[in-house]
């Protein structure tokens, strides 16, 4: 087989890697196709903060050399990948889409970056995000929003909007994001791609710029459930450099993709269907029917405590963020704005370097941690976090996986929610509870909704329930409307 459409990276990552490994396709050829598409269309979409073409060319040439020499080039040989720009890359600028880190070159690679390279994947660049991953639309980026490949007037979701849009646009078959309250799953849903938040501790956070450390988790974006499983197998597994990394190997989800859902107990979270838009709620009902037809035992379940997750999250995450972001003080890296003494220098640097959403969350977090309010807000939110975990535990006594909408609506127009922070926060209502509990959850593109935009369905599982989650996701993928799935080939549609 030959021809440019064939080598376009919209092909399955696993299929591409198999052909590169077999010497049928060169990694350089695959890369040049990806770089060409990015060059042609990313000016409009703005998925990337930085395209590292030269480094990628060297890496791809090395893969081809290994193949020619009969060495093992790795399971993802020659597959172009995009990295969210809050993942540290040695000697390559890592900005978190913030002025305060503009130009900073980390002295080390994140663990996931090293594992991708070792697996033969070729990193093509760093993708746009909401500043420090705080947002649900990629609009809080200091470098301007990313546009949704399905409709350039709409947001791709966030905070990992650049990674989601890069996969949806067909630039790369795989990308990495981070998910603190939905930042992988929500943009995946809005862009019609697969997005996975693994169990907390399955993927090392070493080299992920911290936002809310007890909630942050790195995970895959892909065009298919199988590719997402393959990527998770590469990036997951214990890492001594992260003290919260679980002492386990990565969940082997590829081997269960054909297992089906016969007898799997699936609970539909009824509480999430009342306020979701009709298209998003309808997709969950249709997804439940697909699973039932495949032999799953599907029932509604009421878990009202999950709706309190959002409020607890918007106390806990800003509190952790206010502490984590204290390190941006003009001393060790990034921006410095001078002042007469060190405190003035700190305050001026932070005033100039942080955008409005980051300042708002630092202020909120500092307030709820301050004397007199700590127990009433932060302490109480931590107790509510326990209530959320207990409610999940009750549900998982009856069910193997849960089904829910990923988002309350399809992608919204750029600018629609920027004036009202609270309205923006509500975009994460259905994704936040899994972060609070540390559980895995993923979004699978399933239907077309309002305005012909993609709708994702979310599969949730208990801690380390990735295999059951992927079994359900694979059946949903097979039963989904084919037109609901990116990639969008040959330009925006």
């Amino acid at each position, binding site marked *: 087989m030959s021809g440019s459409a064939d080598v376009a990276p919209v092909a399955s990552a696993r299929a591409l890697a198999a052909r590169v490994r077999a010497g049928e396709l060169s990694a350089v050829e695959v890369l040049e196709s990806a770089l060409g598409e990015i060059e042609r269309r990313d000016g409009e979409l703005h998925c990337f903060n930085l395209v590292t073409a030269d480094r990628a060319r060297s890496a791809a040439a090395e893969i081809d050399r290994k193949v020619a020499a009969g060495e093992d080039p790795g399971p993802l040989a020659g597959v172009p990948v995009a990295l969210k720009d809050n993942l540290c890359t040695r000697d390559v600028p890592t900005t978190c889409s913030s002025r305060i880190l503009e130009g*900073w070159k980390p*002295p*080390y690679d994140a663990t996931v970056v090293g594992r991708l390279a070792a697996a033969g994947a070729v990193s093509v660049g760093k993708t746009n995000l909401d500043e420090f991953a705080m947002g649900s639309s990629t609009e809080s980026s200091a470098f301007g929003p990313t546009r949704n490949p399905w409709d350039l007037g709409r947001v791709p979701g966030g905070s990992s909007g650049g990674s989601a849009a890069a996969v949806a646009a067909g630039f790369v078959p795989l990308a990495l994001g981070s998910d603190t309250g939905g930042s992988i799953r929500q943009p995946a849903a809005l862009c019609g791609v697969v997005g996975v938040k693994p169990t*907390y*501790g399955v993927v090392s956070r070493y080299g992920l710029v911290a936002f809310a450390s*007890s909630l942050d988790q790195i995970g895959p974006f892909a065009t298919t459930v199988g590719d997402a499983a393959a990527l998770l197998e590469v990036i997951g597994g214990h890492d001594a450099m992260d003290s*919260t990394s*679980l002492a386990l190997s990565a969940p082997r989800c590829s081997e269960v993709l054909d297992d089906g859902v016969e007898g799997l107990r699936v609970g539909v979270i009824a509480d999430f269907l009342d306020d979701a838009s009709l298209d998003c709620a309808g997709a969950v009902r249709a997804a439940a029917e697909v699973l039932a037809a495949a032999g799953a035992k599907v029932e509604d379940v009421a878990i009202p405590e999950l709706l*309190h997750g959002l*409020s*607890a999250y*918007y*106390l806990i995450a800003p509190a952790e963020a206010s502490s984590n972001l*204290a390190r941006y*003080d*003009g*001393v*060790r*890296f*990034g*921006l*410095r704005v*001078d*002042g*007469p*003494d*060190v*405190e*003035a*220098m700190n*305050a*001026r640097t*932070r*005033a100039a370097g*942080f955008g*409005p959403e980051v*300042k*708002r969350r*630092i*202020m*909120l977090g*500092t*307030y709820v941690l*301050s004397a007199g*309010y700590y127990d*009433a*807000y932060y302490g*109480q*939110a931590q*107790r*509510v*976090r*326990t*209530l959320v*975990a207990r409610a999940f535990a009750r549900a998982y006594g009856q069910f193997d996986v849960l089904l829910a909408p990923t988002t309350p609506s399809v992608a919204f127009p750029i600018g629609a929610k920027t004036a009202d*922070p*609270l309205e923006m926060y509500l975009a994460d209502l259905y994704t936040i509870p899994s972060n*609070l509990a540390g*559980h895995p959850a993923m979004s699978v593109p399933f239907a077309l909704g309002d305005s012909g935009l993609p709708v994702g369905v979310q599969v949730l599982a208990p*801690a380390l329930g990735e295999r059951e989650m992927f079994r359900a996701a694979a059946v949903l993928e097979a039963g989904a409307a084919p037109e609901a799935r990116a990639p969008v080939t040959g330009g925006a549609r």
Partner: protein
Amino acid sequence: MAGELSAEQVAHVARLARLELSPEESERFAGQLSTILEHVEVVRRLDTTDVPPTSHALDLRNVLRADELRPCLAREDVLAAAPDAEDGRFKVPRILGEAL
């Protein structure tokens, strides 16, 4: 407790957070933070008697590595990223006042 945050409260929190805010930002944040706190007020009304707080989803304690020497980042690599450095150290403006 919700109610509108006062200008003094906003100024106090900004000082704690080492953020220099413009008068316009202070006013905007007072309103926005009050709105957000009002929304999350529901959390404070939930009955959490005898419910312990969760600070972390995993039950991990004292994860330690073996106490062995191993390589770490080179000093010059780390200092290369600093806005100002001198003699192998980070350099900052004066910390103590004039009365030094």
